[in-house]
């Protein structure tokens, strides 16, 4: 939500706390090359393709104030060629070989990926290794691409009321931590970025020891490992990139934000600071998000959408898998004529119930069933599985996947009540309201 991924083509992915099964995690193989590049391999032969992803441990978090949008700009420029590959040729080569490619940037990571047949995936390996070490970031492409990024910002944020609200609320909910900055960058910052900024950033952060590779699909480990070594081993290890370690000070009082914008319907956003997967409470928080808005029979959905007819829909999202603690958000677009203050009151009323009375056993079991079913369905996609592995690895280690289902199954009704009391607390809350204005 606050980390708005900036992508090359239209692709936005949000992953909150869903994981592979224990069985699958046991089938992942890990290798580490001498230059520090970690390689995660998961064979899966039910689909006719292979997805290859390069994850760089760099994102918006590594930027400085005044230079927001740099990591995302670099992601764009990575497609502008190397000494071996012309500008935009990377995408053309992948497409010509029947593949699909894209990339995205978030606050925590920059990821490049392609999906191709087993026979062709080796092509992508070589291209990715080449641009990890030799991207030209050509001067002649810099200004046009800056304009492209500014159009992207206009499309995704400036002309999108919900996103615009999210951006403002994020800057208030996080006072200090880099999560407060939009990944695409503030418009004025983008305008002032220079090519030298990109070159410095690339040299500092794009190295084999600051990245890892994830491959999922119809390949053979014995066949692909030598190809990976051949492509990547020659890239020299770099000095360790500086890690960003910023602690957001504890919030001790509600923050409120209003955004007035041309829109049709009011929008409400509530964000509560909460720990991430490093906390034992993260499983209960995950289950809580499903209890609140995981389906049409979930508490908030049923009350606000169905019974009281106040909102079009309501979402409860918990950012479990992030590098630093993010939080728990509740968002809703209001029906015409409804007052935001009323909806706020109703939501707090619902939350008070969860904090005082235990949810029913059936509600708890229902939420767990939904989570377990979802992660089987998620295995239907090799791309989805690769993304999950990547998210866990970036935030602390892919092996943490193993703990997920067990952790969920152990959550009790008392846990739900306890985490609701502890984290869905008004003093830790930022409330954003979009007030629609009408054009003249």
């Amino acid at each position, binding site marked *: 939500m606050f980390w708005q991924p900036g992508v090359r083509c239209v692709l936005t992915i949000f992953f909150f706390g869903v994981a592979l099964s224990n069985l699958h995690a046991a089938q992942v193989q890990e290798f580490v090359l001498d230059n520090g590049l970690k390689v995660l391999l998961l064979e899966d032969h039910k689909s006719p*393709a292979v997805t290859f992803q390069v994850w760089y441990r760099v994102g918006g978090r590594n930027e400085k104030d005044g230079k927001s949008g740099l990591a995302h700009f670099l992601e764009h420029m990575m497609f502008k060629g190397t000494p071996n590959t012309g500008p935009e040729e990377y995408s053309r080569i992948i497409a010509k070989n029947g593949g699909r490619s894209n990339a995205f940037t978030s606050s925590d990571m920059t990821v490049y990926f392609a999906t191709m047949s087993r026979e062709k995936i080796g092509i992508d390996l070589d291209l990715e290794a080449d641009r990890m070490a030799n991207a030209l970031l050509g001067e002649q492409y810099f200004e046009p691409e800056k304009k*492209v990024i500014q159009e992207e910002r206009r499309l995704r944020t400036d002309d999108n009321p919900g996103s615009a609200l999210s951006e403002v609320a994020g800057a208030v909910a996080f006072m200090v931590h880099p999560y407060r900055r939009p990944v695409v960058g503030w418009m004025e910052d983008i305008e002032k970025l220079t090519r030298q900024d990109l070159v410095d950033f690339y040299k500092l952060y794009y190295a084999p020891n600051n990245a890892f590779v994830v491959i999922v699909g119809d390949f053979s480990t014995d066949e692909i490992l030598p190809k990976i070594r051949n492509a990547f081993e020659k890239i020299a290890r770099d000095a360790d990139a500086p890690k960003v370690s910023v602690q957001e000070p504890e919030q001790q009082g509600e923050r409120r934000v209003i955004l007035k914008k041309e829109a049709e*319907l009011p929008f409400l956003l509530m964000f509560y600071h909460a720990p991430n997967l490093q906390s034992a409470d993260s499983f209960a928080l995950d289950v809580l998000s499903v209890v609140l808005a995981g*389906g049409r029979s979930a508490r908030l959905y049923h009350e606000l959408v169905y019974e009281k007819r106040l909102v079009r829909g309501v979402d409860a999202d918990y950012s479990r898998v992030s590098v630093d603690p993010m939080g728990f958000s509740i968002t809703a677009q209001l029906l015409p004529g409804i007052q935001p203050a009323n909806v706020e009151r109703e939501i707090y009323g619902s939350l008070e119930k969860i904090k005082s009375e235990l949810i029913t056993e059936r509600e708890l079991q229902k939420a767990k*069933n939904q989570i377990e079913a979802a992660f089987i369905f998620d295995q*239907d996609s090799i791309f989805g599985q690769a993304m999950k592995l990547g998210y866990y690895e970036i935030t602390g280690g892919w092996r943490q996947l193993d703990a997920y289902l067990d952790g969920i199954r152990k959550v009790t009704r008392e846990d739900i009540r306890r985490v609701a009391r502890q984290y869905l607390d008004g003093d830790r809350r930022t409330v954003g309201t979009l007030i629609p204005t009408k054009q003249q």
Partner: protein
Amino acid sequence: MTPKRTVLSNGMVLLTSEQRTLPMVSIELLMDAGSVHESAPQAGLANLTARLLTYGTKRRSALQINETLDFIGASLEAACGQDTASLSMTVLKKDLATGLELLADVLTQPTFPQAEIDRQKQAIIATIRATEENPGAVAGKAFAAAIFPQSPYGRPVEGTEATVKTLRQKNLQDFFARYYRPNRAIIAVVGDVSEQEIASLLNTALRSWAKGEPSAVTTVPVKIGPAKLVRVNKELTQANIVMGQSGVARDNPDYYAIQVMNYVLGGGGFSSRAMDSIRNERGLAYSVYSFFAAEKNHGTFEFVMQTKNESALEAIRIANDEIRRMREEPVSEQELNDAKDYLIGSFPLRFDTNRKVASFLAQVEYFKLGLDYPDRYADLVRNVNRQEVLRVAKQYLHPETLITVIVGNLKKIAEK
């Protein structure tokens, strides 16, 4: 993918593909019950009918349906388009019997309770309002209205606030009784279940579902709107642009040559001319693409992009140039081969998940492409040559008939 096709005793076409590696089943059902069947004063009827299916049956209230689905972690979504309505279900294998029984229930026994009708009408009207703040959707709606005036294809599926308000329970019941019939339905079932097992389960679950009026075979002639400029003023930083005209129906034999031609023009992402001249060279847009939407009875060609208000007119001029260029010179040998290589090479990626296979099979049946379509596709594309591409460009791209829609800050757009 190992597809099988059967016709059930009630006339419903069943397609299956066994995929045993995950204990899940994906179901896609298409019903010939789209908004094309409604009259203009009742715009939104097909959509409202589809929505109400999961909000109450003889056996279950809306709440019971919600609870049942959520408790087994399954999803059941009803949607409506211009030609067809659809029901999509994803369910764990262990809950297949429950899922199918529920699916059969909502498909054959909905009761359209008045309270639920009121709820959904309010929700749909809110959706119509919310769409106004989505500039791309506003542009799309304006384009459709201009290209297919006085036609169901020119109307939004949701209808308008005024027409939705007039819809009554009897309208829904009548529409349902006439158009929701097994011999108007296609169902694709993919996953951890065999063809025999699913055919048997469906025959049982749907045994009381009687045949009705079959789908009409005749095509409906559609009046095409003339070239014009449509401007919609909104307080935006970008102009949202749709330039388009009439296209082809899916069964037009030129479909494959058109796909190749469009790939070069604007469908090929970073391999397309539109992307090169509008995005890469000039930085005028982040998203720019073209497509031919080929439906059962009609089709469109559309060129879509968003650019800051101040560069709208320049971007439109360049788009026009690119369209013109496609008609004037043959594409290069490299462009032709790149297009064909992508279309053929990436074809398997269209069905690399259970859900995509279910959707794919339903579409193949709906457009009568034949179960051997995946085997024939490569040759259909391979046979396209440069002369064919030029011919279809001349035949189907007519810059002088383009309808151009601009949604944005008209004052800033005109200033340039």
